[in-house]
């Protein structure tokens, strides 16, 4: 510890260089922590998928619907236990009420309060044990066409309780009605067992597909079908069997596991995991070069001082340790700043109306800086500092005093 002031004083020797190196390191760790947190959230979302559920969608794109007639035919496929229409509604809270249609409706959509909302069949809840709904509330939901099941997180966010009413308007034209927004009544609040079903997001809302179907003139089909199967190990064969049924139809289907479906949904923007990891790796490598260059310059500038230290009796290993300690100190400073920055960004994302709701809309409502990610980020910073300082330190270790003094 008695050498710490010595190391820190050397860092203050060239403020601009130290600051820029620390800033570069901080940006590296900031990106690492932020990207890894997003990936961790995506992985948690995928992990929450149920292995015994398949999703059948239109083979071309999610934009196209699957005919309602497909439901009974999917149900008839061997190995299928039940089928539920699951249609993503895409509604958000509008600033107006039912029966008061506003020609400027699209302009008044309140995106800051966007959250996932799905129109589903009753069967959906039977195949979704992660959502725990009190039986009496569930019955009340089924008996009310406008009834809604809201997740606990969503209810807490808006302060909703049983019997409260709210309005949603979809941004999808086909899911709108002339009379104005859809009106809903909170009939049930869904909880989850976080230990048994980790990653389950209760920031979601369900309502009856029948309400959507009838309110829009009975012209709709299904967004997707959620299919419960009796044997998860046969998911591939059953998926093929389902898709084979509609191979020669106008609306061919694509059936996959829920996990694959979610991964595909998230990856519509590309291979996110590869992209995020690639960015992180490239940035880390660049920062390694920058820091190594900084340390090399620092050591080269101080060849005489290193020679003096050795002349005074500092062993070569000790001098090497001082150089490495300096580089590691840069890593520690940069790492701490980067982690702080990442934590700050997460806070902003989760507390800024609009952004937090947009993230919630794609199931990433819980993006936070995980302690493990922060710890790994800090370790990466220290390792980067060590790696950057090692070669210059080794050079200082090997250099002969007389050679270094001669380069004055």
């Amino acid at each position, binding site marked *: 510890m008695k050498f710490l002031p010595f190391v820190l004083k050397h860092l203050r020797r060239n403020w601009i260089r130290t600051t820029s190196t620390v800033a570069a390191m901080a940006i590296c760790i900031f990106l690492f922590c932020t990207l890894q947190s997003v990936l961790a959230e995506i992985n948690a979302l995928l992990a929450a998928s149920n292995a015994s559920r398949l999703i059948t969608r239109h083979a071309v794109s999610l934009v196209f619907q699957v005919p309602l007639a497909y439901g009974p035919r999917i149900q008839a496929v061997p190995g299928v236990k039940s089928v539920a229409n699951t249609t993503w509604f895409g509604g958000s809270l509008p600033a107006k009420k039912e029966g008061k249609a506003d020609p400027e409706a699209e302009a008044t959509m309140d995106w800051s309060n966007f959250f996932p909302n799905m129109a589903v069949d009753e069967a959906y809840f039977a195949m979704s044990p992660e959502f725990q709904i009190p039986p009496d509330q569930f019955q009340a939901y089924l008996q009310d066409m406008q009834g809604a099941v809201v997740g606990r997180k969503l209810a807490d966010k808006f302060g909703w309780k049983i019997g409260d009413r709210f309005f949603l308007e979809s941004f999808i034209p086909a899911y709108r009605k002339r009379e104005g927004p859809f009106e809903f009544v909170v009939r049930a609040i869904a909880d989850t067992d976080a230990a048994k079903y980790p990653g389950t997001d209760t920031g979601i809302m369900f309502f009856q597909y029948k309400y959507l179907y009838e309110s829009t003139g009975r012209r709709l089909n299904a967004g997707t079908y959620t299919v419960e199967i009796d044997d998860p190990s046969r998911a591939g064969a059953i998926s093929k069997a389902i898709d084979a049924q509609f191979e020669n139809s106008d609306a061919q289907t694509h059936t996959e596991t829920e996990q694959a479906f979610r991964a595909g949904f998230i990856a519509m923007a590309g291979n996110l995991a590869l992209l995020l990891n690639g960015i992180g790796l490239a940035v880390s490598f660049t920062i390694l070069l920058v820091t190594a260059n900084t340390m090399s310059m620092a050591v080269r500038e101080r060849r005489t001082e290193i020679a003096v230290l050795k002349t005074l*009796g500092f062993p070569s*290993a000790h001098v090497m340790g001082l150089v490495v300690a300096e580089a590691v100190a840069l890593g520690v400073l940069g790492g701490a700043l980067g982690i702080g920055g990442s934590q700050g960004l997460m806070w902003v994302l989760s507390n800024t109306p609009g952004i937090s709701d947009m993230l919630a809309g794609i199931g990433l409502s819980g993006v936070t800086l995980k302690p493990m990610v922060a710890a790994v980020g800090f370790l990466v910073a220290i390792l980067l500092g060590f790696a950057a300082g090692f070669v210059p330190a080794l050079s200082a270790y090997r250099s002969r005093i*007389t050679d270094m003094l001669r380069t004055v």
Partner: protein
Amino acid sequence: MSAEPKPAPAAGPMVDVRKVRKVYHRDAEEITVLDGMNLQVPPGEFVALMGPSGSGKTTLLNLIAGIDRPTSGLVTVAGTDVTQLSESDLARWRSRNVGFIFQFYNLIPVLTALENVELPLLLTRLGKAERRERALTALRVVGLADRSRHYPRQLSGGQEQRVAIARAIVGDPSVLVADEPTGDLDAKSAEEILALIESLNRDFHKTIVMVTHDPRAAERAHVQRHLDKGVLKD
């Protein structure tokens, strides 16, 4: 001014250089810098090494200070054959036995005068307060106690050299080696530095080996030895 107990030097010369040969290799070429050098310096002696550039003065000084190794021969300082020591043992030996005064002072610019002087004591087991006290004592000896908080850039050349001398003596070494200590100073500062070195020899009985080109500096020494082409002439 002793930092740690150390063995008393054996009876005989403080510095004993015997049949030392030093050869440098530049590509395929062999350059003999010292050729069969013999030099004995008794304890408490003040020796000036003179000679033209390239005569081997600094090389001899480096061998005595243990920062270089001879190609062959023996270098015994304060009773220790430094040619037999490993790198780490040699470093430890230097910290206890040798004080080095450079021509260009070579103070660490980010450290204050006090911290520069304290630097060698970081290798000892002394506590912070004791280190500070000893460093201040050394600065008092060179007359710069009032400049202890100044950085090298805030000191004149002569003052910087005095701080460097304080750094050299703070560990109470057996031998002080000085490589042209007045080479970068004006006449007045050079006089002050030479007077200080002389007093270290006279009052603290330090054995001093000084390389210099300056005849007036050499006159301060008890003994003047002249080198030419790696050989002592007198």
